[in-house]
């Protein structure tokens, strides 16, 4: 088969008026316009499409951006998960081979002394967070916690790990007195200052949830959006964000595909003329990695902004607005 035969056939299909291909199909038709709309057109006669091409499109196309801050922290585990993991660890204590100190520690070193001191204080249990429990002794059956015992909670696990991390023996193998032991620095609290003050402008609030940037405009609270000016959706969204909230944010537009849309139907007169144009707003999804919004000098009349979670948005946005955008919001 010759290499050029396919191209020539395609050209012939377009230019020749052969009876197998109708002239409508031979004209350029994009894949986005379905054949269904093409076949519908002759049935309803030629007047409505002709009218629609004469009159301007009755919708304003708007492009908006849902700027989200991804969660910074892992989720808080369910108490059942904590309890289950603790249970499994104690079963593992019953099933594992014994810990052989001489494999991991050279005799008469500071590390070995430190280790033996800590294990003695734990009552001989090798695991750090399991309390006093011997998986090989005759009391190994007693591996369940009593109701209300806080030993399996994240807090107590953290405390026991921190206690174990502090050095108890100095480099020259001398036991440090209990009052001289330097405790290991605790990790920063998961609840931030902004959470305690309920400062909705800060970005370090609700750190295990996704936050969404909403601005207060003439129409109430909503995501920043503006009418497209002969540009594509993603360019429009970028421009809207830069104009509305300033450039001092490190953001990333996740894709060009809209994740949510809102449609406001136009008000039509009796003769089919448009009295008030409708609105189609398409929202793209953006992520913020650093920086803060700044509404100073924005041309859209935005007066205030907030970083809210999904539940807070539900209270803040109007119900039909929230119904339009809620599908793009993650559970967390």
């Amino acid at each position: 088969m010759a290499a050029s035969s396919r191209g020539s056939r395609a050209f012939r299909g377009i230019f020749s008026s052969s009876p197998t291909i109708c002239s409508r199909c031979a004209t350029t038709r994009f894949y986005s316009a379905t054949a269904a709309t093409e076949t519908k057109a002759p049935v309803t006669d030629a007047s409505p499409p002709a009218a629609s091409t004469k009159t301007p499109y009755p919708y304003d196309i708007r492009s908006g951006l849902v700027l989200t801050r991804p969660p910074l922290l892992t989720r808080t585990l369910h108490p059942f998960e904590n309890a289950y993991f603790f249970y499994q660890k104690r079963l593992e204590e019953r099933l594992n081979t014994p810990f052989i100190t001489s494999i991991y520690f050279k005799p008469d070193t500071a590390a070995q002394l430190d280790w033996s001191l800590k294990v003695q204080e734990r009552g001989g249990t090798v695991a750090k967070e399991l309390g006093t429990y011997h998986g090989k002794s005759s009391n190994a059956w007693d591996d369940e916690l009593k109701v209300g015992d806080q030993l399996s909670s994240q807090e107590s696990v953290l405390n026991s790990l921190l206690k174990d991390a502090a050095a108890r023996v100095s480099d020259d193998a001398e036991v440090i007195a209990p009052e001289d032991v330097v405790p290991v620095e605790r990790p920063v609290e998961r609840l931030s200052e902004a959470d305690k003050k309920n400062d909705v402008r800060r970005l370090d609030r609700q750190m295990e949830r996704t936050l969404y940037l909403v601005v207060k405009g003439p129409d109430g609270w909503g995501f920043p959006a503006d009418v497209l000016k002969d540009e594509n959706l993603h360019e429009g969204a970028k421009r809207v964000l830069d104009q509305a909230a300033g450039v001092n944010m490190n953001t990333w537009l996740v894709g060009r595909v809209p994740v949510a849309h809102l449609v406001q139907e136009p008000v039509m007169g009796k003769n089919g003329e448009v009295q008030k144009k409708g609105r189609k707003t398409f929202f793209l999804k953006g992520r913020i990695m650093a920086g803060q919004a700044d509404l100073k000098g924005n041309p859209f009349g935005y007066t205030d902004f907030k970083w809210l979670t999904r539940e807070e948005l539900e209270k803040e946005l109007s119900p039909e607005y929230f119904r339009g955008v809620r599908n793009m919001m993650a559970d967390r």
Partner: protein
Amino acid sequence: MASSASITGLFSRLSLLSRNTTTTATMTTTTTPRLFSTTSTSLARKAPPPAAGGSAPKAARRSRQAPKSENFFRIRTLRRNMFSPAPPPLRMARLRYLRHWTIHRAWQLFRRKQHEAIEKERSRMHAGMYNACEELRKTVGPGSRGEGYLYRVAMEKKGVYGLEGVPIEYARFQTDSPAKEAWNHDWKR
């Protein structure tokens, strides 16, 4: 049992080999058996003939007090402890086993609910995108553009793949506790 025996054999061979190399370093006259070769000569090799008297090998063994290798103590620790017997399987009384079963079933149920919630969330987000794209496909504009223009542009995959597809700042893991400065509010372009 058979595998552990073979490993013990390997270890004894290993120590024998190291001892042999040390002896060859000191006295070059002894012949070293090549342990790991599979050549025809080694296959054809015969076992050494048994010693004639009872006391002769004992004396030979006593005289072979080769210097210990540097790994001697490490190997001794491993040989002593590696082959400890496996712990017995869990035994539980009837009610204890019933509790264990209940915990197991509750965990399975919990996992199932989690999976279903994730599945539901993903399909919901996908449906949102699908509906928005469908609406975009039916949209005319902007300006003099025809129907579906914005949709076709949105479907382009320019800049999605490759090294610049995802910014490196976005590759941040979620952590158990926040950083000392949890968020950089003063970032400037």
